[in-house]
């Protein structure tokens, strides 16, 4: 049993690796878009513009009220119908993870920026910094320590949530595993491997988040 299990794994490795590549690509792209979008959200949300804040609030609440899996179906089925726009399921997943992640990261960035003393903004303005310079040189660098640990936590959630892509037809690591199971009936082994695959990506991330949080708690 043990040797045959190892054999099976070795044989299935290329197929699993290919699926894992898709899973990792979706996660990585989702993380990149979530980070860029989140910083933009955080900056916009701290400008003190009422109309902007209302728009961001609606965006945030929509992504909080509607589960990510529902968003995946809405985009996957909805884009072709409502906008006659058909995009591959891979990019549907990236889009949804990016937009959802941006709302979550954005709230973290907003909170971190809001926690800075008001005087930092005024001191920056008083020496004539432009808005971009104020955020780039003064506010965001100081918010970095506060926003990094929770943002890394959101990254682990993005990686975990990327698993849902299989449900809209992406041939990711789970789909690859299921195809192997169809041939071999080794469901315990394969699902065990998938379990560990996600665990070994997510655990280091959450451990890093905790370690950084502890280290920066007093600075």
């Amino acid at each position, binding site marked *: 049993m043990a040797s045959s299990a190892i054999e099976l794994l070795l044989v299935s490795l290329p197929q699993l690796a290919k699926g894992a590549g898709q899973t990792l690509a979706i996660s990585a792209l989702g993380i990149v878009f979530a980070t860029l979008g989140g910083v933009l959200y955080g900056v916009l949300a701290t400008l003190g513009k009422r109309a902007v804040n209302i728009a961001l609030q609606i965006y945030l609440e929509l992504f909080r009220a509607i589960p990510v899996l529902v968003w995946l179906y809405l985009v996957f089925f909805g884009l072709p119908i409502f906008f006659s726009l058909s995009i591959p399921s891979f990019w549907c997943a990236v889009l949804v993870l990016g937009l959802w992640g941006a709302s979550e990261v954005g709230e973290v960035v907003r909170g971190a920026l809001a926690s800075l003393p008001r005087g930092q903004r005024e001191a920056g303005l008083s020496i004539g910094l432009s808005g971009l310079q104020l955020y780039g040189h003064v506010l965001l660098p100081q918010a970095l320590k506060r926003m990094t640990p929770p943002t890394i936590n959101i990254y682990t959630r993005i990686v975990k*949530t990327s698993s849902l892509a299989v449900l809209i037809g992406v041939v990711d690591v789970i789909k690859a595993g299921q195809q192997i199971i169809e041939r071999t009936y080794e469901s315990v082994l394969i699902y065990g491997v998938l*379990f560990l695959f*996600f665990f070994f990506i997510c*655990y280091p991330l*959450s451990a890093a988040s905790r370690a950084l949080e502890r280290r920066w708690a007093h600075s």
Partner: protein
Amino acid sequence: MTFDTAFMLSTLPAFLKAVGVTLQVGLIAIATSLLVAVFNAAVLVFRTPYLWRLVKGYVELARNTPLLIQLFFVYFALPTLGLKVSGFAAAIITMTFMGGAYLTEVLRAGVEAVPRAQLESGRSIGLSEGQLLRHVILPQAGILSLPALFANFIFLLKETTVVSAVAVPEILYTTKNYIALYYKTYEMLAVLTLLCVLLFLPLSLLLRHLERRLQHGQFGN
């Protein structure tokens, strides 16, 4: 593009039932998760030998893997080991597995957030450890972790959509079913979106209100 409103209305009974299933799965999972979490948090807080490490390991494992994999493992892999479970049971088991871990962390953090000085002043007036826990730690930890607990309840309720993957007839599964049967895609997506907004938005807004009220864990106002 026109909405077939007559068709939408005709699906209403089925969707009402689906909302029932969503709430059922969600509320049962919340209750069982909470039971698991209270036990685990007590083990962590009192550092019960051996058991403590086991709980730590469980929490890390459950928090760092996707619900979908956990669900597929229970539903597809366990039967080959002789443990056959229905989709509904698989849903409750996995959501408890995951939810229990999340809530454990919430409760533990709540206890840890009670200031040390509170324990010291409790001891200084002669309270026993049990009295300390009952009269000083738990009431404050409860208040401190209330927003996080509530946030996780909502999270679990939303995660019930994932169990549509093992044919539990909740709102998302019902939507997919109608789309597959009648091709009324946009009507059904509209119904699904509406249901999510009606179900989850008020809860989400309530949470925000609760967070603001309890931001500093204050009493008396």
